[in-house]
């Protein structure tokens, strides 16, 4: 571990005696793209709100850049940028006016402020819409402007709480592109919360899975998926399945195999490099294969394994 830019110690928040966040201990490194993954109501946003000084922890605390989030709130506020889940802009102001207002609150003055506004507008490709009232912006444009606003004061840490919630696939990819670039080019530590598995998998270097206010797993997406173990090779068989399965059973690298509905499912490590051998074996046994595919484990599977529930079950019952 390098030197952590954020460290949480026993961070907890209770509402009416019920713990929304329960003893979270986490360290996030400088420059890291970190993900908090969990269903709605798992406590992700509550963690973000505590770290951004909007609400106070019931127990424990955290430091950002060495500043305590309870004792040194102003110092913390100066070095973080936030895009809340329901980030709000003033709809009666134009994009540029919105940025100008916030830049002033962050203490940016004169030419420095005007230059920075142009820079961030350029970054999120909203320059040509800068003088249009925000009420005429699409959802994706509003989210981009909110990200620009969060970046204005060159924060060391950027919190993105469900940054793509409610956006269409195209806007989502757009935003992924921006934040990835930010992380790489401007060396900003990014803490992202999401309940989209794909998002955490695509963007984050490390992911903490959070459920009912507790961290249940913490690792790289690859290692987390490793918890589930192997990939699965799926072969759709038209005939000769039984014989093929028998001869495959001699390969030591097949962890397990089963047949169901005309499909053979093989659990193997590194499925891509095993497919040729499996296909050759099928030819030699004169089995007729119509389709071969790989199912990689997803973070969804990891969540299921760790909590015994799928993300969607949590959302149906939890909220």
């Amino acid at each position, binding site marked *: 571990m390098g030197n952590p830019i954020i460290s949480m110690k026993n961070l907890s928040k209770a509402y009416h005696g019920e713990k929304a966040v329960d003893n979270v201990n986490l360290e996030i490194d400088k420059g890291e793209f970190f993900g908090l993954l969990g269903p709605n109501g798992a406590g992700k946003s509550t963690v973000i*709100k505590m770290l*951004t*000084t*909007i*609400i*106070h922890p019931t127990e424990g605390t955290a430091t950002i850049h060495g500043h305590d989030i309870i004792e040194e709130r*102003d*110092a913390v*506020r*100066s070095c*973080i940028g*936030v895009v*809340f889940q*329901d*980030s*709000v*802009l*003033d709809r*009666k*102001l134009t994009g540029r*006016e919105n940025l100008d*207002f*916030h830049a*002033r*609150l*962050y*203490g940016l003055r004169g030419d420095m402020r005007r230059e920075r506004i142009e820079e961030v507008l350029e970054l999120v490709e909203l320059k040509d819409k800068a003088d249009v*009232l925000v009420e005429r912006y699409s959802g994706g444009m509003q989210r981009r402007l909110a990200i620009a*606003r969060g970046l204005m004061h060159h924060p060391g840490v950027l919190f993105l709480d469900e940054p793509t919630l409610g956006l269409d696939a195209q806007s989502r990819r757009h935003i992924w592109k921006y934040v990835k670039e930010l992380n790489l080019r401007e060396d900003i530590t990014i803490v992202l919360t999401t309940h989209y598995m794909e998002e955490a998998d695509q963007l984050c270097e490390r992911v903490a899975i959070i459920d009912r206010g507790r961290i249940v797993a913490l690792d790289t997406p690859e290692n987390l998926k490793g918890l589930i173990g192997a990939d699965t090779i799926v072969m759709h068989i038209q005939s000769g399945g039984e014989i093929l399965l028998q001869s495959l059973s001699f390969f030591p690298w097949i962890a397990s195999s089963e047949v169901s509905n005309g499909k053979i499912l093989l659990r193997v490590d590194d499925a891509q490099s095993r497919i040729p051998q499996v296909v050759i074996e099928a030819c030699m046994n004169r089995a007729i294969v119509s389709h071969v595919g790989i199912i990689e484990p997803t973070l969804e599977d990891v969540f299921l394994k760790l909590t015994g529930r799928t993300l969607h079950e949590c959302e149906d019952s939890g909220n």
Partner: protein
Amino acid sequence: MRFYLYEAYSLWRRDMLSFSRQKDRLIGYSFAPLFLLAFIGLGFKNQIYFPEMKNIDYLSFLTPGMVAMTLLTASNSTSFLMLWDREMGFLKEIMVTPSSRIGIILGRTASGVTVAIFQSFIILFGGIVMGSRFHRPEGMLISLIFMALIASAFIGLGLSLASFKKETYGFSLVLNFILYPFLFLSGALYPVDRLPSLVAPLSYYNPLTYGIDGLRYSLLGVSSFSPALDLGVMAASCLAMLGLGTYLFEKGEWD
């Protein structure tokens, strides 16, 4: 000091931009006091005189009272706007910046005061058109000070109360329930010594009594207390209320 004035200015600026794009809000709030002034003031203009007030006609006497009512309405609308920002989620975006809380309170108060004074002048000119006779023209300038102090003190009170609430629903009712006693126990409608003896003493603890007295001093040239006392009490209440607001904003949660 310089910093929080700059922050206050930034907030004020944003509010003025927003207001300038929804002008109906500006004028709407002055209607009720203007109608009251017209229907009560004109109706009793020649019927009611208070000897201790140098027999000033009732319309002129009531005008400062209705100005005060307008200023209290501005307190309500300013704290309502704050709650609206909170409900919409915009307040959170402000509170997450390192901007000083006192700057945030002062900025919001300044925009409330600006609107309140604008509306008060609608009442004053309405009064002049109906026949209110003001003592001297420069009195209007002195009255500005009292208007600003009354509006700030009650905006401070409104913002403090609003800091405990999360949504606008029902807030105006609650705030009016608190603001109206201030208005009725202030001599807005008639001199406080005519209040029922049970409640009359309360009016001496009501800062608005001194505020309205100061308005009458500046506009009509008559007053029950010394203008210095009026000014002192209003300034102290103003500081106390804005201080309370700042304290509550400092320690509150803005989810």
